[in-house]
C-alpha cells in the first residue's frame, strides 16, 4: 500500500517536472543509505577510465525514486528477492537438491560473491555472469533445466545473489584466464556506433552523461544495481535485457542475451563501475 502511494506521487512528480526538469540535470549531491547501511555511490575511477569519478545511477534519479530504493520495505524489487529465498531452499531437478543443499544459508555463502562477476570460467573458456553461474549449478549439480533468458525466477535468483553483496564495491579480476581480451572486445562494442540512429553506448553515457534525453536523465550507465526494479514495468529488469533495449533503440539488430558480444560488454561496463557498491535491486523509473 505504501509502495502504491509512492508510485502515484512519483507519476505526479514527473508530470510537474516537465520543462523545469532541466533545472536539476546534474547528479545530486546526496548520500545513499539502504536501511541505514551506507552505499558507495561515488568512487575514484580505475586507471585508464575516461572519467575521474564513477557515479551510481542512483544519483541521477528523481528524489521519489531515490527514496524508494533507500528503504527496502518500499522497494518492490525486494519482494522478488524474498521469493527467490524460497526458491533457494526448494529442491529441483533429478538430483533432488536445492541451492541450499550445497551452499547452506544464502546470506553467508553468497556474501560478497555477486560483486565480482563476470568471472573466468575454465570449463566454458569464457567469462560467465551470475545468471550463467546459476545455470551451471542447475544443469551440473541439480539435474535441472537452465533458466530461459529473463524467466521471472532467473531474474529473482540473480537479484537474491547480488543482494547478498549489498554495499560491497564491485570489481572484476582481469588477470583470470583471457579476461583482458574480453575487456578489450567489450570496449570496442562500447564505442561502436550502431543502427540507423548511429549511436554508441559512449555517445549517451560518456559524452552526454548528466544531460536530459527527453524525459530521461542520462547517467554513466553503471551496472551496479542490476537486476533493477523498473517502476514503469513493475518488474525486475536484467542487465542483458537493458543492453538489448539500448541497442534496439539505436534501430539496430540486437545480439542474443549472454552472447559473446554482450558478455564482453558486461565485463567492460562492470569494470567501468569499479568501486561502486552493489545496490541490487536498485529502483529506476
Amino acid at each position: 500500500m505504501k509502495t502504491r502511494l509512492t508510485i502515484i506521487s512519483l507519476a505526479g512528480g514527473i508530470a510537474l517536472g516537465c520543462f523545469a526538469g532541466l533545472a536539476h540535470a546534474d547528479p545530486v549531491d546526496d548520500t545513499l543509505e539502504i536501511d541505514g547501511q551506507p552505499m558507495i555511490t561515488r568512487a575514484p575511477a580505475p586507471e585508464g577510465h575516461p572519467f575521474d569519478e564513477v557515479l551510481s545511477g542512483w544519483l541521477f534519479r528523481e528524489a521519489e525514486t531515490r527514496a524508494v530504493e533507500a528503504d527496502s520495505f518500499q522497494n518492490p524489487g525486494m519482494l522478488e528477492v524474498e521469493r527467490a529465498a524460497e526458491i533457494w531452499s526448494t529442491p529441483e531437478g533429478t538430483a533432488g537438491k536445492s541451492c541450499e543443499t550445497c551452499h547452506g544459508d544464502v546470506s553467508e555463502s553468497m556474501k560478497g560473491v555477486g560483486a565480482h562477476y563476470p568471472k573466468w570460467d575454465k570449463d566454458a573458456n569464457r567469462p560467465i555472469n551470475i545468471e550463467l553461474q546459476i545455470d551451471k549449478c542447475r544443469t551440473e549439480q541439480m539435474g535441472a533445466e537452465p533458466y530461459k533468458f529473463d524467466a521471472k525466477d532467473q531474474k529473482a535468483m540473480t537479484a537474491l545473489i547480488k543482494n547478498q553483496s549489498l554495499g560491497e564495491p564491485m570489481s572484476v579480476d582481469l588477470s583470470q584466464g583471457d579476461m583482458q581480451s574480453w575487456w578489450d572486445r567489450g570496449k570496442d562494442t562500447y564505442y561502436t556506433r550502431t543502427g540507423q540512429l548511429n549511436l554508441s553506448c559512449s555517445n549517451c553515457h560518456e559524452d552526454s552523461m548528466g544531460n536530459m534525453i527527453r524525459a530521461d536523465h542520462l547517467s554513466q550507465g553503471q551496472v551496479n544495481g542490476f537486476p533493477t526494479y523498473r517502476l514503469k514495468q513493475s518488474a525486475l529488469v536484467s542487465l542483458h535485457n537493458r543492453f538489448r533495449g539500448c541497442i534496439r533503440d539505436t534501430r539496430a539488430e540486437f545480439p542474443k542475451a549472454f552472447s559473446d558480444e554482450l558478455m564482453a560488454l558486461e565485463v567492460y561496463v562492470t569494470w567501468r563501475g569499479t568501486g561502486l557498491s552493489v545496490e541490487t535491486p536498485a529502483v529506476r523509473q
Partner: protein
Amino acid sequence: MKTGSAFFLSGAMALAAVTFAGTANAADTAPNDVAFNEMQVSESLTGMPGDPAAGADAFKNRKLGNCLACHTTTAMESELFHGNVGPDLDGAGSRWTEAQLRAIVVDAKQVFGPDSRMPGFYSLHVGKNVAEKFHGKTILSAQDVENIVAFLVTLKDE
C-alpha cells in the same frame, strides 16, 4: 498481339512506379545524391518549399524527428520534456541560413564532423547492424526534412 503485350508491360511499369512513390517520391533527391557545398545544401530535397506547421509536428513527433529528445526551444514550451544533449534552438533561424539548417538536418556529421552525436536524418551513412526494417531507409522523408527546415527558419532571435 504484339501491341497488346507491349501495352500490358508499360502498364505494369507504371503501376510499379506508383507503388514506389508510396515510400519515396520520384521527384525527391535521393539520400546519396544530396549535394553538400561548403557545409550547405542549397536545393530543396523535394524541389518545393516546406510547410513550417507540418515541420513543427514532425519536430516534436517521437516517431519522426523527435528533435525535442535532444533540443530545447521556447517555441515548444507547451510540450513536456525537452532534452539538452544538443544546443538550444532558440534563434537557430537567425544563426544559420536555410541551406545550413538543411545540411545539419540531412547529415550533421558533414557539418560538425564525424564525432557529432546527431543522427543523419536523410542519410544512409549509418551505424553497424541496422535493423532489417530500416535497411536502406532514412529516418525522415525528404518532405519531413523540408518541413522541419521550414520550421527551424522561423526560430528567429527576438
